[in-house]
């Protein structure tokens, strides 16, 4: 079935000053090539830790994590990762920030400028190439960070709450925009959010996590056809999804 991410029985414990803090417990999660997968769960349940482990940033864990059919313990994974913070370099212009991954891998010279221009347009950054990050709105910063992530090596993209810090309206616009960009390119996206509506609107499948120590309670396939449009969010079917997800998350709280 072409699973590009396949996680089996992943557990992870942080040690804080001798104390053990179990963060992930027996996590099972998989993503098919070209799918949009969301991970949803309460704050502090271990979503970021899950992504950090997939990206190879956490060395100590139990279970197996396969990326592109290779065990990440022996083969450090190649993937794109966007942290919860945008991490734009304040002394670089937008364009210089965006091309950082190309610059680092020595591909800047051969980079297809035409293609780059198309992407800059698509990411709504045209005209701001020479602006500095502090001159951008929150949404634009986020799009710049997204485009930089886009230009990183690998067909798998991990996005850790990319819209978490945005106001409601900007967030909606960003969702509409992201869904369009993604439907154009069809890379595999793993997406963290704690916004149920956002998860349903964007995803092919939603993995629901419990409170810490995080484990996958259930996963819900979203059957809306593509391309998606926002009107799907005003339907009976959407409410059913929402109800199911809320129930899953809420029941967990009572435990």
């Amino acid at each position, binding site marked *: 079935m072409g699973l590009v991410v396949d996680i089996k029985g992943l557990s992870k414990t942080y040690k804080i000053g001798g104390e053990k803090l179990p963060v992930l417990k027996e996590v099972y999660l998989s993503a098919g090539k070209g799918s949009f997968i969301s991970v949803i769960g309460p704050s502090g349940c271990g979503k970021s830790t899950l992504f950090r482990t997939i990206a190879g*940033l956490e060395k100590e864990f139990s279970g197996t994590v396969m990326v592109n059919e290779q065990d990440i313990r022996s083969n450090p994974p190649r993937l794109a990762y966007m942290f919860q*913070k945008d*991490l734009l*370099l304040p002394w670089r212009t937008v364009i210089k920030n965006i091309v950082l991954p190309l610059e680092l891998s020595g591909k800047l010279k051969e980079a297809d400028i035409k293609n780059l221009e198309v992407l800059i347009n698509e990411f709504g950054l045209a005209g701001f190439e020479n602006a500095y990050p502090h001159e951008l709105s929150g949404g634009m910063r986020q799009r710049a960070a997204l485009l930089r992530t886009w230009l990183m090596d690998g067909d798998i993209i991990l996005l850790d709450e990319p819209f978490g810090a945005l106001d409601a309206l900007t967030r909606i616009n960003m969702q509409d925009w992201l869904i369009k960009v993604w439907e154009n390119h069809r890379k595999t996206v793993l997406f963290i959010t704690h916004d149920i509506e956002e998860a349903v609107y964007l995803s092919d499948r939603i993995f629901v996590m419990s409170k810490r120590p995080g484990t996958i309670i259930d996963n819900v396939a979203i059957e809306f056809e593509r391309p998606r449009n926002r009107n799907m969010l005003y339907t009976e079917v959407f409410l059913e999804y929402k109800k199911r997800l809320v129930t899953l998350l809420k029941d967990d709280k009572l435990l």
Partner: protein
Amino acid sequence: MKRFVNTGRISLPISFAIALMVWEGAVYILKTPDYLMPAPSRVFTALVESFPLLMRHGAVTMLEVISGFLSALILSAVISLLMVRYRILYNILWPYMVISQTVPLYVLAPLFMVWFGFGILPKVLIVVLVCFFPITVGLVQGLTSTEPELDELLKIMRATQSQILWKVKVPQAMPQFFSGLKIAAAYSVTGAVLSEWVGAKEGLGIFLTRSMKTFKTAALFADVFIIIVLSLGMFFLVTYLEKKLIKRRTDFYEES
């Protein structure tokens, strides 16, 4: 806010002028002898009279300042980069660097003279000692202030150590580096003067000693005035360079 800034601009010259007038008036009324407290007008006359002499001594002092400052800059850069790269060097060197700052300069200055002679070398060394610490503190702090997540992002992008250093750590360190550099610049002239004070053939410090010994207090004040101007000059030179460097950010994207 705007009004506040505007008053800041004019309040300094006005307060300075008032202070000068009060000073001049007080000396006139109290008839203070020149060797105790010369009036500003007397200081100005002395400044004009000894100007060629002050310039000659100033040139020597500035030679020491510039050589010391630049040497400290190079030394700081090399040592900071090494300390950031090899943590063990940091652990070994850092305590000595702090201790070096606690030894009084007026003890070191004559010692250096005994060791390195009457020439400008011991003076340059004092300036190096004065400048090295603030520059290094700024640089090391700047070079190690990368957010852990940014380090991880660079790792995911498979950046090499030298790429991380030159493309991220060094540019990121610039604001803190310049803070240290400004402190060093402001103190560099005083450092040179102090070391000349102990003994020198030429320099603003030795001019200071001579004026004092001969009770030429007005000339002494004129000398101090030159020292202040030169110190400020060093400070603003660095501030200017910082501004210029930051402006140059605009044409970062030239190469592609």
